[in-house]
């Protein structure tokens, strides 16, 4: 695997050149569409110029020569900056959350087709520029990861589409008009309209699968062994969010309790939801709470964790920057401390309460509870005191409309959902290992 930079560039030049040609073709098609269907000549000219730029770039990439490719690589300074200052889970999560907030807040600007198209081009260009970096390319072009890269763009497209329609509807409804979906009441037949679409999808999907199987070799590894774990050892991509969660929680919590709560919480949504608006059409303004909570849960706490686990977690599950070499001996100084130790040892200055030698099981348990009392009180306070507080302050209207039981269910689900980011932030900031730590009974939180 250890190849020189020149050899690496030689190897990737064919792909990169074709990549830029494809980007050029993409923009040319967009220009053609804008010119012929939308009749916007100025805009078509812009996309045509962009297409030409990509076409001009592509021979540089095809050449495979370092002195030419350096013009279309991510500058060294930016790469170093990203690796040095952005390469922690804390910064990564904060940046993604902030960008989601910005996208949400200025959605009316970002969903404009021109802006969205520019953002897509920018994302693809950044990816292309980064591909000239061998470490970045090694991760992104791994056969496991290629479909995940494709899915990131797919997810971006669908998020844009839904937001675009929602913004359109919101603007219409602000003017007192009905949503767009209400205008299109034409009914189509299952046969042939739907069945033909399904059949075409089936054919296309089969073709894609065949091409994919031919193009990307299945990453076969050595025979499985119970005593040898690959490093890094990664779950299937769709479980990488859970694997990331496992870094912060006990397996019992992150593997059983929280995933079950995710499932049951999603099932409970129809029963908790009292907002009748937004039925059958896209909208954000009429369902701000539901929309933002769902998007935070899905985009921030599921998708970005998958991306984090796929591309940014390296050997020994250390966090690596996108342009960083996956060094199995990277040292991350970590010394995680339980809350009980923070409280008893560092706070009060005594040793952890411990049952005397030869004490009975009941006494030992009492000592354990006494030792973990700060954490137990904290968790109890979080789950029992917060709901009434929420009902009296920010969620006052919710409480009135939902009633006691529904509000309690909703607020507790919300609090359990908040447990993950809370624990993550506590781990990142004060190296907190567990709030409640009772390894004697496999109970850790």
């Amino acid at each position, binding site marked *: 695997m250890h190849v020189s930079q020149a050899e690496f560039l030689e190897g990737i030049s064919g792909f990169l050149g074709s990549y830029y040609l494809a980007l050029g073709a993409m923009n040319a098609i967009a220009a053609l569409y804008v010119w012929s269907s939308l009749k916007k000549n100025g805009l078509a000219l812009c996309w045509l110029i962009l297409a030409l730029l990509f076409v001009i770039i592509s021979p540089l990439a095809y050449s495979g020569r370092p002195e030419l490719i350096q013009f279309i690589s991510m500058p060294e300074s930016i790469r170093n900056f990203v690796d040095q200052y952005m390469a922690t889970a804390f910064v990564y999560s904060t940046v993604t959350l902030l960008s989601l907030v910005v996208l949400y807040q200025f959605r009316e600007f970002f969903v404009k087709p021109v802006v969205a198209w520019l953002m897509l081009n920018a994302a693809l260009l950044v990816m292309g520029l980064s591909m000239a970096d061998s470490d970045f390319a090694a991760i992104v072009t791994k056969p496991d990861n290629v479909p995940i890269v494709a899915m990131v763009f797919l997810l971006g497209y669908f998020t844009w589409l839904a937001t675009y329609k929602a913004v359109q509807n919101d603007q219409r409804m602000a003017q007192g008009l009905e949503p767009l979906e209400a205008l299109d009441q034409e009914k189509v037949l299952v046969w042939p309209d739907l069945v033909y679409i399904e059949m075409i999808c089936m054919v296309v999907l089969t073709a894609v699968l065949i091409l994919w199987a031919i193009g990307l070799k299945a990453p076969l590894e050595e025979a499985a*062994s*119970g*005593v*040898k*774990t*690959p*490093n*890094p*050892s990664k779950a299937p991509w769709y479980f990488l969010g859970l*694997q990331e969660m*496992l*870094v*912060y*929680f*006990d*397996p019992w919590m992150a*593997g059983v309790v929280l995933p079950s709560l995710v499932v049951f919480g999603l099932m409970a949504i129809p029963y908790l939801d009292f907002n009748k608006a937004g039925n059958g059409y896209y909208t954000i303004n009429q369902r701000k709470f539901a929309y933002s909570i769902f998007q935070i849960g899905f985009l921030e706490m599921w998708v970005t964790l998958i991306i984090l686990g796929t591309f940014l977690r390296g*050997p*020994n*599950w*250390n966090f690596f920057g996108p342009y960083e070499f996956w060094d199995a*001996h990277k*040292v*991350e100084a*970590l*010394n*995680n401390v339980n809350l009980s130790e923070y409280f008893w040892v560092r706070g009060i200055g005594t040793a952890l309460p411990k049952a005397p030698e030869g004490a009975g099981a009941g006494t030992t348990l009492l000592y354990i509870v006494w030792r973990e009392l700060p954490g137990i009180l904290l968790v109890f306070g979080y789950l029992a005191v917060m709901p009434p507080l929420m009902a009296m302050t920010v969620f006052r209207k919710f409480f009135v409309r939902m009633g006691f039981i529904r509000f309690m269910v909703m607020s507790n689900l919300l609090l359990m959902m908040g447990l993950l980011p809370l624990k993550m932030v506590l781990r990142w900031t004060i190296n907190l*290992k*567990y709030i409640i*730590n009772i*390894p*004697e009974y*496999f109970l*850790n939180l």
Partner: protein
Amino acid sequence: MAAKKKMSVEEILASCRKADSDGGAGPEAAEAAADTAPAAAEKPQSASKQPSSASPGSMSVADILAAARAGKPGGEAAESPAAGGDSGAEPPAAAKPAPAKNPGQMSVAEMLAAARGEKSGGTEKAAPAKSAPKPAAKPAAAKKEAAAAPGSGPRDTSSILAAARKSVKPGPVSKAEAAAIKPAGAKPAVVVPPMPSKPDYAKPAKVAETEENRRGFLAVFFGSFLAAGFTLMGTVFGLWGLGLAKFMFPNVRTEPPSKFKVGFPADFAPDTVETKFKAQFGVWIVNAEYEGARMIYALRTVCTHLGCTPNWLEGEQKFKCPCHGSGFYIDGINFEGPAPRPLERFAIRVADDGQLEVDKGKMFQEEMGQWSDPACYVPV
């Protein structure tokens, strides 16, 4: 079809009968009404395209009324069916006996009542045809009713009418009555001739039942193909189950023994981790200091978080799990990542020949205070 509640033919005829008795016309009127129908039916036989072969006895009410319509002279009759369909919206109210009714929704009962009314009014047999636009709208309705009726009501309208014509019982009859009347004039009962007795050659041969002997035992298992099949199936399943049971106890077990010798204590240098037993036995042999005492102990190579196999990193002097990043010191104490408790120790002792012997059958957990047990370390 019609918005009005559909009446079955039975109900229609019942209401018709009721109207009869109310009107006091009695059997004569009903008979006359019945007479009118065939008479009207005969008319189209010569005049129009109505089915000429249809005998009055097998004609349905719809047919009869359609025939009555067709018998009406002049161009009105020809256009009336079409008009009937259209005029559903605008009834010719002036000519109607039932002004509130929409012609398209007229029931058979009303039609028959109207026919009866005409008859008792003194008109002769051709009169229904002549009674201008009134019946003209009705047949259309009658057609519709007739089309709808077979699905819901009893189908023997024609037989009822035929019975009425034959003066078995004057006037329409209910379904039950029709059933009671029918056998009298209907088809004769089929008389089945007695079966001839079987000839000798057709009789089954008598099985000699005297041989109640040892062969009877075998007959239980192989007496028939079914029994043989089930016996065979049972045997195969039984053998298969035995084979499955044997599979649980293989002849050769490839897993290493739980007790094994790893060498002399002097082979393990201070502050080193011997990793060569990891692949086969899942054990690290460590010579290190723990709580001030130098000792040799055997650590289990399973992460206490989720069961991955950590790696010993010589440079960092720690065990590091590749799955979620848990880290352990050389003494097995967890210090980073999510692992909630230290690595586990196996039992270790100095065997009779002076070698160290590890017993994986016993485990010692630090958080349970078991590491003070002398069975889990060998002092050096």
